[in-house]
């Protein structure tokens, strides 16, 4: 059990506290490099964007509740559904799972004191915040992105879209992409090098395998989006001809590059959720995950094969069948690793002694919705079926079951699960279970009828529809469902806020989880671990002998590293202790650099390229300033 719970007065612990604590107040938050604080910054920011995206969704559903409704004008509707998609994907789901959950938990789960590059971690957050503010300034000025979240050309080109709407989209997402790329680099190096001694790759928690898969996918997928957006802006601003058929260009180039990014992106959305599920299930089933190596590999396989399916989003573009079969084949096969995972999860629950507390309920809901969304997804692998249903509500149903059911439900379950660790208090179980049922019923009611209304012909993205097509009652049910869902989500928020202030004390390990975050106090101290833990399995908190061994080490000063701001590193494959590295303290450079980067893009937006160049130079100066002092001096 946690060594420092019993020994907060120990001189080594006090020294660690002294070395690792950060400035208080707003300056502390602006200059923080602590992965837990950065995780919290991400958490609250992404929640705010979730709220914004949710309001956009409710407005959309309200407009569509009845035929020929005039709640929203068509142009406003276009901005709303586009911004809803962009917000939910780029400003909520991915930063929440990687930036909030990933940042907070990965160092804890591998037994480290921080991420490999703490200042770059902060930079990722500030760039993300900048990208969100950038896009929403556009929306509030009446120039919100309006060409759909995949922003096809030629609709997105100057000729059809002369205002700055698409420029807000493209430049905002470039900034967002840089943020995610840096975060991905950080996760990969952290997972490779900062694991506690003894934690060889085969003993790494499944959540970390999921984060590794996500990060590798981000590294190889984001460049396609970045280059696509650069091509788009060059076309819009300076008249480049990438997408104009008359001059040798091709509108399909946009689609190929976009989906080359965006299909891996949807696995990036879902994989951390798998990671959360594989953390919650063993804890509440009270047994280790069945077929652990298969589940770990399945996470990586899904990410890898996901790079070879992109043109299944283009089955209706008229490309020759011989080109499309490659993607149909890979799409059919990519479902298999996910299926293996579903079997492993359900078998682990049934082979264990499950305790259906709120986190496990949300994972149950996740499995139900993921299976349904996966089934509708596999139907799209058949080219003729896809051509009949593309751009209908059937697609909208599929991806909402996956994104909402398979990404958001684990996020909600994870919020409950780790709430005691982060706050030191227990959430209210009864309210949590009610919030689950509201969310579950709301999700089912909102998104299931979309399958039917899509099959009977309702296209997506329409701002209204005529009477008499038989679509009315489905749309009304969906809207009612969305309000029930909203109520469920508000109840989750209420539960967490209320429990934050009035919940019972949780202690370090209320659920007897298997991974290392449960061995330290709740909330964790700044330095995470007073003694870097000894690890000999993937569920170290269930290895009593190892935990007992740790208890003696504090006294002897073994693996305590309290001399400076330090954490040990180990070898990549086998987790053999290697060297001790110095970690940087708070720094003003990340927020400064992000500020200049955002301003550079604002200048590009308003076509002041020379000034943009100056801000880019300031970015380079910030980079120099940042690296001028070494981590132990910084």
């Amino acid at each position, binding site marked *: 059990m946690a060594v420092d719970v019993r020994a907060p007065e120990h001189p080594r612990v006090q020294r660690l506290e002294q070395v690792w604590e950060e400035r208080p107040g707003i300056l502390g938050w602006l200059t923080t490099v602590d992965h837990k604080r950065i995780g919290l910054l991400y958490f609250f920011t992404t929640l705010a964007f979730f709220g914004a995206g949710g309001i956009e969704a409710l407005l959309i559903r309200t407009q569509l509740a009845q035929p020929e409704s005039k709640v929203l004008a068509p142009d406003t509707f276009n901005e709303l559904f586009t911004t809803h998609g962009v917000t939910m994907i780029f400003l909520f789901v991915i930063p929440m799972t990687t930036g909030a959950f990933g940042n907070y938990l990965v160092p804890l789960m591998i037994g480290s004191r921080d991420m490999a590059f703490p200042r770059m971690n902060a930079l990722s957050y500030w760039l993300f915040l900048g990208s969100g503010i950038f896009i929403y300034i556009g929306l509030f000025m009446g120039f919100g992105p309006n060409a759909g979240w995949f922003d096809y050309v030629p609709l997105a080109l100057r000729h059809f879209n002369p205002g700055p709407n698409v420029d807000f989209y493209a430049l905002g997402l470039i900034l967002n992409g840089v943020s995610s790329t840096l975060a991905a680099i950080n996760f990969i190096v952290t997972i490779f090098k900062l694991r506690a001694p003894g934690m060889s790759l085969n*003993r790494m928690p499944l959540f970390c395998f999921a984060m590794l898969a996500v990060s590798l996918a981000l590294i190889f997928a984001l460049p396609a989006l970045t280059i696509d957006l650069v091509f788009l802006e060059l076309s819009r601003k300076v008249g480049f001809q990438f997408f104009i058929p008359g001059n040798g260009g091709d509108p399909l180039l946009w689609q190929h590059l976009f989906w080359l990014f965006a299909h891996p992106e949807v696995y990036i959305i879902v994989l951390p959720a798998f990671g959360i599920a594989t953390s919650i299930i063993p804890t509440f089933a009270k047994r280790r995950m069945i077929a652990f190596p298969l589940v770990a590999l399945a996470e990586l396989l899904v990410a890898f094969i996901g790079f070879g399916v992109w043109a299944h989003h283009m089955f209706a573009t008229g490309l020759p069948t011989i080109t499309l079969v*490659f993607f149909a*084949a890979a799409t059919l096969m990519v479902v298999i690793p996910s299926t293996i995972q579903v079997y492993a999860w359900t078998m682990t629950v049934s082979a264990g002694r499950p305790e259906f507390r709120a986190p496990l309920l949300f994972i149950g809901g996740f499995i139900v919705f993921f299976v349904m969304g996966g089934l509708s997804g596999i139907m799209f692998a058949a080219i003729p079926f896809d051509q009949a249903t593309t751009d209908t509500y059937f697609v909208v149903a599929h991806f909402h079951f996956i994104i909402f059911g398979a990404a958001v439900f684990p996020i909600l379950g994870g919020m409950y699960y780790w709430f005691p660790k982060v706050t030191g208090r227990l959430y209210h179980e009864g309210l949590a279970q009610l919030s689950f049922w509201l969310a579950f019923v709301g999700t089912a009611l909102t998104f299931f009828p979309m399958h039917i209304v899509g099959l009977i012909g309702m296209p997506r993205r329409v701002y209204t529809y005529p009477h008499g097509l038989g679509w009315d009652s489905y749309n009304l049910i969906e809207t009612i469902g969305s309000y029930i869902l909203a109520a469920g989500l508000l109840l989750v928020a209420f539960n967490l806020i209320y429990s934050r202030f009035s919940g019972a004390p949780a202690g370090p390990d209320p659920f007897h989880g298997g991974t290392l975050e449960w061995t330290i106090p709740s909330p964790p101290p700044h330095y995470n671990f007073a003694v870097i833990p000894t690890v000999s399995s993937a569920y170290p908190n269930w290895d009593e002998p190892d935990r007992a061994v740790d208890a003696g080490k504090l006294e002897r000063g073994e693996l305590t590293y309290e001399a400076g701001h330090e954490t040990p590193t180990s070898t990549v494959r086998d987790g053999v202790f290697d060297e001790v590295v110095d970690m940087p303290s708070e720094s003003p450079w990340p927020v400064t650099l992000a500020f200049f980067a955002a301003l550079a893009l604002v200048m590009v937006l308003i076509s002041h390229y020379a000034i943009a160049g100056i801000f880019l130079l300031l970015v380079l100066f910030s980079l120099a300033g940042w690296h001028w002092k070494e981590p132990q001096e910084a």
Partner: protein
Amino acid sequence: MSVARQSKGVEFLQWFGLLGAAIVWTAQLIVGFGVTVADCSVAGAGWNIDVDTWQIVLMAIGVPLAVVSEVAALLIFSETRGLHHNDPPPWGRRHFFAAAAVWGNLLFIAIILLSGIGAIYNTPCQGS
């Protein structure tokens, strides 16, 4: 053979067993897809690319290589038969990777075959 060289050989087998089939499929996708795009395009139409031959060659090279990758994984798996995936590295780690790779490679072999056969079955450049 010295212990160090033997261990290097085993490591190579482990990585080839884990990554070989994946790399082969990636190559087949890029080349196979690229050939169909070239053949069905304005510039490439005049080159008389024999798409079917390309696909057959890709499968003829790809499937055996992927099978070799599977054999490598099976070798490591049988070498580490008695171990558990939580056992100490390096052998515990090798067992972990091999246990997963023996199944993963089958998936890639299936995709390579499906893609190649599908491409051969379809007439080049006929619309969808």
